[in-house]
C-alpha cells in the first residue's frame, strides 16, 4: 500500500521524531487510532530484502550506522576533560540509523524488567553520589504492555523460575537450543543454578504474517532479511502505513522543536535529504529519537523562554545516562559448537538478578550464552591472549577454536550518576552545523564490581560445563554505550524529572518524550522490551489526552 502523504503546510495531529523501538510503536498506535501522524526518521528506509550477510560492511564499514564523517561524536570520562573525537571503532553512542532504528540491528534479547526494578530505591535505600530513585510506575502497571509486546511485536520464549508474573503465555515456543545454551545449562545444573530459555524478539515460528527464523546466524548488528527479527520496521511500520494516517519521511533530520509565545510546541524544523530547511506543524510533538539524540534535540531547542534547553527546567535533560555494564568470558570445548549458526543467545541465567548486600556493593545482572564474533572478528581478536596472533600456529588455532568457542555475556546494572551526560560539544559540529553529540561517561564503581562478580560466576559455569580453556578481559569501565538510557528521566516531581509518568514533558504540555531516555533505573542489561512496553503505554495515554485536545 502506498503511504499517505501530508503537505508540509498541513497541521497533523502528531509529529514523531524517530521511528525506532518507541517511535515505530507510537506511529502505529496513534495512526491506527485515527490520528494523523508524520514520522521524521534521520536514516534511510531499508526494506528487509536489502539486508545482507556481510560482516565487513556491517561491522567494519558501519553500513547501518550514521555516517561518522557527517555526524561525529566525542567522548570523555569526566567534565574536566576535553572530549576526544571518536575516529575509529564503534562510536561511543552506538545506534542504528534508519526506519526501525536500533530495533533493526539489535540482538533481540527481550528480558522483561521485574517488579524490583521499579522500586529498588525503596528496597535498597539511597546510594551516595547517585540519583538512584524509584520509578513513578510499577511493574504491575506496565505488565499489560509487556504482554502486548509479546503478542504484537513477536517474542519467543518459555517461562523460567525467576520470571516476573505474566498475564498471558508467550505466543510461541523458544528458539531451539544451541550448543552454547546446552553448555550453560550443563554448568548451571552442576552449580544448582537455573538456566532458562532466552526470551527473544525473534520468531521461532511464522507469526502475524511474518516468516520464522531460518537460523542464518546474522542477528547481532545485522538487519534480518527474513523479517523474523521483531523490529518495528517489520512489526509496526507496515500497520502504520496501512492505517492511511501515517507518513514516514526517511532521511529527515530534525533541527529543533518550534515553540510559540505561549510556550506550546507548534511542530519541528527539519531538513530532508536535499538539506532544505522545512517545518512540520503538529498539534503535539513526540520525541523518540533515542537516549542520546533526544536530549541533544531538546538542548538544541533552547530559546529565550528556555535558555537551558527545551523541557529542561529541572536541568536534568541529558543527565543520568546509563549504558548497562557488560563483560565477557570465553571458553573452549572439545567438540564443535558452531555458534555462528542461529540467534545469539538461547539460554540465560537470572539467579544474580537481585542486588545482594552480602556482596558488599549494589548491583544485579544476568548471563547469557553465545559467541558474538563472526569470522573476521574472530580472526582478529577471537583467540586467547596467550596464543600467537599470526603464523602457522595462529592458523591452526583458528582452525580448531572458531567452531569450539563460546562466551558467557554478562550484563548488569548501571547506577544513575548525574555527571554521566549527553551534552552539545562546544568545538565539533556535524555536516549540518549542529553541535556534535558529546558523551561524558564513567561507570559507577559498583557497576564494574557487579560485572567482575558475574564474570567470576561465568568462569565457574564454564569450568562446571567442562571447558578445556577459559579466558577473558577483566571488568573495565565502558567506552561504548549501545543502551542509551535515563537522559530525560520520568518522575512525578518536575524538579527532579523531565517527563511525567505518562511521558508528557513537565514544562511543555503538548510535548511528549518516550524512548530509553525515560528510564529511571537501568534494569539488568536488556532494555528494549521495556522501551517498547513504555511506548505502548504512552501511546494509550497520549491518545486519550489528544481526544481531550491535549
Amino acid at each position, binding site marked *: 500500500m502506498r503511504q499517505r502523504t501530508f503537505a508540509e503546510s498541513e497541521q497533523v495531529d502528531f509529529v514523531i521524531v524517530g521511528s525506532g523501538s518507541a517511535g515505530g510503536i507510537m506511529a502505529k498506535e496513534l495512526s491506527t487510532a485515527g490520528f494523523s501522524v508524520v514520522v521524521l526518521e534521520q536514516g534511510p528506509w531499508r526494506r528487509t530484502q536489502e539486508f545482507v550477510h*556481510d*560482516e*565487513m*560492511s556491517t*561491522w*567494519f564499514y*558501519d553500513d547501518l550506522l550514521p555516517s*561518522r*564523517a557527517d555526524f561525529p561524536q566525542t567522548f570523555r570520562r569526566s567534565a574536566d576533560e576535553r572530549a*576526544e573525537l571518536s*575516529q*575509529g*571503532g*564503534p562510536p561511543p553512542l552506538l545506534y542504528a540509523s534508519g526506519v526501525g532504528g536500533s530495533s533493526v540491528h539489535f540482538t533481540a534479547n527481550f528480558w522483561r524488567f521485574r517488579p524490583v526494578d521499579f522500586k529498588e530505591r525503596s528496597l535498597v535505600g539511597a546510594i551516595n553520589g547517585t540519583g538512584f530513585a524509584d520509578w513513578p510506575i510499577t511493574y504491575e502497571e506496565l505488565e499489560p504492555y509487556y504482554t502486548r509486546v509479546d503478542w504484537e511485536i513477536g517474542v519467543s520464549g*518459555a*517461562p523460567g523460575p525467576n520470571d516476573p508474573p505474566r498475564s498471558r503465555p508467550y505466543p510461541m*515456543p523458544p528458539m*531451539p*537450543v*544451541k*550448543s552454547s*545454551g*546446552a*553448555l550453560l*545449562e*550443563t554448568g548451571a545444573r552442576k552449580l544448582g543454578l*537455573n538456566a*532458562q*530459555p532466552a526470551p527473544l524478539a525473534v520468531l521461532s515460528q511464522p507469526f502475524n504474517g511474518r516468516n520464522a527464523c*531460518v*537460523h*542464518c*546466524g546474522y542477528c547481532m548488528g545485522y538487519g534480518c532479511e527474513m523479517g523474523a527479527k521483531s523490529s518495528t520496521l517489520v512489526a509496526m511500520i507496515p500497520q502504520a502505513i496501512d492505517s492511511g494516517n501515517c507518513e514516514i519521511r526517511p532521511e529527515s533530520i530534525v533541527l529543533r522543536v518550534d515553540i510559540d509565545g505561549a510556550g506550546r510546541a507548534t511542530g519541528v524544523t527539519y531538513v530532508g535529504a536535499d538539506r532544505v530547511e522545512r517545518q512540520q506543524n503538529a498539534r503535539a510533538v513526540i520525541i523518540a529519537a533515542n537516549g542520546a539524540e533526544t536530549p541533544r534535540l531538546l538542548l538544541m531547542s533552547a530559546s529565550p523562554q528556555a535558555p537551558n534547553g527545551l523541557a529542561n527546567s529541572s536541568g536534568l535533560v541529558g543527565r543520568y545516562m546509563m549504558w548497562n555494564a557488560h*563483560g565477557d568470558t570465553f571458553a573452549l570445548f572439545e567438540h*564443535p*559448537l*558452531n555458534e555462528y*549458526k*542461529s540467534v545469539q543467545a538461547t*539460554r540465560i541465567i537470572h539467579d544474580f538478578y537481585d542486588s545482594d548486600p552480602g556482596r558488599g556493593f549494589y548491583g544485579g545482572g544476568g548471563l547469557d550464552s553465545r559467541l*558474538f564474533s563472526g*569470522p573476521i572478528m574472530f*580472526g*582478529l*581478536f577471537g583467540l586467547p*591472549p596467550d596464543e600467537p*596472533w*599470526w*603464523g602457522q600456529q*595462529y*592458523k*591452526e588455532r*583458528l*582452525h580448531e577454536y*572458531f567452531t569450539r568457542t563460546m562466551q558467557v555475556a554478562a550484563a548488569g546494572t548501571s547506577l544513575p550518576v548525574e555527571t554521566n551526560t549527553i551534552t552539545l560539544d562546544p568545538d565539533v559540529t556535524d555536516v549540518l552545523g549542529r553541535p556534535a553529540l558529546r558523551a561524558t561517561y564513567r561507570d559507577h564503581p559498583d557497576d564494574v564490581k557487579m560485572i567482575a562478580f558475574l564474570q567470576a560466576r561465568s568462569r565457574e559455569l564454564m569450568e562446571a560445563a567442562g571447558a578445556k580453556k577459559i579466558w577473558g*578481559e577483566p571488568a573495565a*569501565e*565502558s*567506552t*561504548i554505550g549501545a543502551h542509551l538510557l535515563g537522559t530525560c528521566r520520568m518522575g512525578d516531581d518536575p524538579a527532579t524529572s523531565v517527563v511525567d509518568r505518562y511521558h508528557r514533558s513537565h514544562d511543555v504540555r503538548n510535548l511528549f518524550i518516550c524512548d530509553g531516555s525515560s528510564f529511571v533505573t537501568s534494569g539488568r542489561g536488556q532494555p528494549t522490551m521495556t522501551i517498547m512496553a513504555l511506548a505502548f503505554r504512552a501511546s494509550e495515554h497520549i491518545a486519550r489526552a489528544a481526544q481531550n485536545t491535549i
Partner: protein
Amino acid sequence: MPESTRREFVSSSAAFLGGGWLWLQLPAVATLSACARDAATRNDPFTTLSAAEGRAIRAFATRILPSGDGLPGAEEAGAAWFADGALGGPMAHFRDLITGGLADLDARATAAHSVAFADASPEQQDALMHEVEDSEFFFIARLLVVAGTFADPSHGGNRDHAGFTLLQMEHAPAFHPPFGWYDEEHVRVHGPTAGGTA
C-alpha cells in the same frame, strides 16, 4: 609480540580502537563508504598497489596465514586482492601507512639479505616481520589479511570461501538444528522442548 606488549599496544591505540564491551579491540575502519566489490581473480593486476607492493603484501599475508598444510591460507583466499581493493576504497586512509610499511620491509630485507622482502626465505620474512610487529603498520596490515581471508567474497578476498573452509565454517544462507555437538546431545537427553534446568 609478548602478550602484555600486544595488549598494551592494542589498548593504547585509541585513535583506531573501540574498547570496552564487545568491541574490546575492534580496529578503526569506520566512516567509510561501500567498498569496490568486484571480485578479482588470481592473475588480475593490482589496481591500488604497485606490482612490487602487491608481491610484498602477498608475501606478508602468506606469513600471517601460511599455506602448504592442506588447509587454505591467505594466498588461496586472495587476501592481497581484498587489501588492494580496500586501500583504493573504504580504507584509502591507510594506503600510505601500508605502502610505507611494505617499502620498509623491502628496505630491511635488502639491507639484511640483499633481496626484496617477497624474495626472502620464509624464516627471513618471519624475522623481519617480528622486527615491526609492534607497529601500526603491522596491526593494520594484519587486519587487511585477516579481513581479506574471512570477509564475504564480494569484497574481493575469501575466494571459493577459502577462509570459511579454514575455520570449518559451513557456508549456507540458512541452517537447521542440531547446530553443534552439544545441542544435539542435549536434545537426545532432554528432548527437543526441554526448557532449561527448571
